[in-house]
């Protein structure tokens, strides 16, 4: 009996034991957003240990972070989540003196609409929402409206994201993406519920493997996830719908609760290095906001239409802003209704 107690006690004690005395940094990022070498290289160069975990949606990240003591140091919210996070006091203002590589950013991202002084976050990767499909089994869809076709029953997925799904419905109806009007949103809701019987599931990037495997034929998808899937399965293709589409940028932010502000700044600065940025894109097929990094990329990737759409196409895209609180709540409620229908 005594020996057993001792053993258990020792095991319990070991949970608090840190044999690793290096400083730690906790980074919470979207899945498939770094190269295999990115984190180990940083650990080696700075003599630290990085705990790196991934999430699949802003809400998943926000749910952990919103309490103010989640334990994470750096997270990557989408651009229209940054102002509310800052307003809630979750973010730590960036010290530009430590971010020496800030000049590497694309001109378009140096003073973005959501954070003109880059006070809260550094743009990391950007993308748009469109339609990924299996070219060998079906003709290319052209518009959001094509996702309501009965032929797709059970082989279609939509994103598990209220903004994207409602946005697609609004665009299909010819209404603005950021509509806050209750009537317009009501119509969009009806569309979404009508489409629901065709939808196999609401999935984010996790549907990538199923697209590649052929379980799913058509998916509302972010352009970077689509590019990754196409890389694995060339029979896939991606298109930005004719009616219009949203553009997003994920930003690296430092949480106010972080007790390692300096190290966090080092990491963000590290991500801004051209070589690091280029390596990430090569490994993950994402679109970086880093101009110097983009310049190091091979031609094929730099001109990939899914990742870097041509200028005329970009004009049909819009960058959704932060909605006022009441409109946000209305949309959230509608999303619950759609999911529950």
């Amino acid at each position: 009996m005594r020996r057993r107690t001792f053993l258990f006690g020792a095991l319990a004690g070991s949970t608090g034991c840190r044999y690793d005395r290096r400083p730690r940094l906790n980074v919470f990022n979207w899945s498939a957003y770094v190269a295999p070498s990115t984190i180990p290289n940083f650990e080696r160069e700075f003599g630290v240990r990085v705990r790196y975990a991934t999430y699949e949606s802003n809400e998943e990240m926000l749910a952990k972070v919103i309490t103010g003591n989640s334990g994470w140091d750096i997270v990557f919210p989408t651009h229209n989540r940054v102002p509310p996070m800052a307003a809630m006091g979750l973010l730590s203002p960036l010290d530009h003196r430590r971010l020496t590589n800030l000049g590497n950013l694309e001109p378009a991202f140096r003073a973005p609409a959501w954070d003109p002084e880059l006070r809260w976050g550094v743009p990391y990767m950007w993308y748009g929402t469109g339609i990924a499909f299996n070219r060998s089994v079906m003709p290319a869809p052209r518009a959001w409206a094509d996702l309501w076709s009965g032929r797709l029953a059970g082989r279609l997925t939509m994103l598990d994201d209220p903004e994207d799904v409602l946005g697609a419905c609004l665009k299909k109806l010819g209404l603005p993406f950021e509509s806050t009007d209750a009537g317009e949103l009501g119509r969009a809701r009806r569309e979404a519920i009508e489409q629901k019987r065709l939808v196999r599931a609401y999935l984010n990037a996790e549907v990538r493997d199923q697209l590649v495997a052929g379980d799913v034929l058509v998916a509302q998808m972010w352009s970077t996830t689509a590019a990754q899937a196409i890389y694995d399965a060339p029979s896939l293709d991606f298109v930005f719908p004719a009616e219009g589409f949203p553009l997003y940028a994920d930003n690296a932010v430092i949480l106010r609760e972080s007790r390692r502000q300096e190290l966090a700044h080092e990491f963000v600065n590290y991500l801004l290095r051209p070589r690091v940025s280029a390596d990430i894109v090569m490994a993950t097929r994402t679109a970086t906001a880093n101009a110097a990094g983009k310049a190091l990329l091979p031609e094929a990737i730099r001109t990939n239409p899914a990742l870097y759409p041509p200028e005329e196409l970009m004009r049909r895209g819009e960058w959704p802003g932060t909605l006022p609180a009441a409109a946000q709540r209305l949309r959230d409620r509608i999303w619950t209704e759609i999911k529950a229908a």
Partner: protein
Amino acid sequence: MKRGLGFYAAGVYGFLHLPLAILVAFSFNTSRFTVWEGLSLRWYQAVFTDPEMMEAAWNSVVIAVVATVISTAAGTLAAYGLWKRGSRWISGSLYLSLVTPEIVTGISLLAFFQWAFRWLNWQLGLHTVILAHVSFSMAYVAIVVSARLRTLDPALEEAAMDLGATEWRAFRRVTLPALMPGIVAAALLALTISFDDYVITSLVAGVDSQTLPMVIYAMARRGANPSINAISAIIVVVFGALIIVSQRMRDA
């Protein structure tokens, strides 16, 4: 009728065990698709060389062991206390805890921790997971031990006390040894439940406390992956062995 029942039982056992058997079988498949291509241990290799999975496995073990120790001790004492004295509140709450859906337990504990953290300056982590596991294991331990207690004769303890033993001594020397098989069974049950839990753990886990079910779930959501087959096979074998060993010990 007996023959028919026998066939039926075989059918149900097949239903229960076949999916697991298939799962294990395909963990040895070379190909990652469901066409059999050959024997291979590559998925097992993938499992053991995956640092995230190994760390999660370690976390699961630590959490399960610590939570089991605490909940078995507390649950045994509770069952004993209820046997001797009875308390409608406690037994009623234990019942309720048993049938409360996991999601409700999970969010209530999450809400409690977040509220408590305003004063405690803690974060979510291994300790919160362990506390949560103790919370839902208590009822299981109490039930198993109670069942065993009911087979005991209270007269034995009274005799010991008549002979001069204190209450605690009587408990330790007379009741506890007789209770051992029940306690071991309860501990095993608590261990399994704790190791297996996903819903509650995912809600109260922190940065450092990824557990094996959380890793498996994340992989499963991204689609079928033979590594999951491999780790599942390992879990099945390990726990299967655990029961067989415990049964042997009990029969011995």
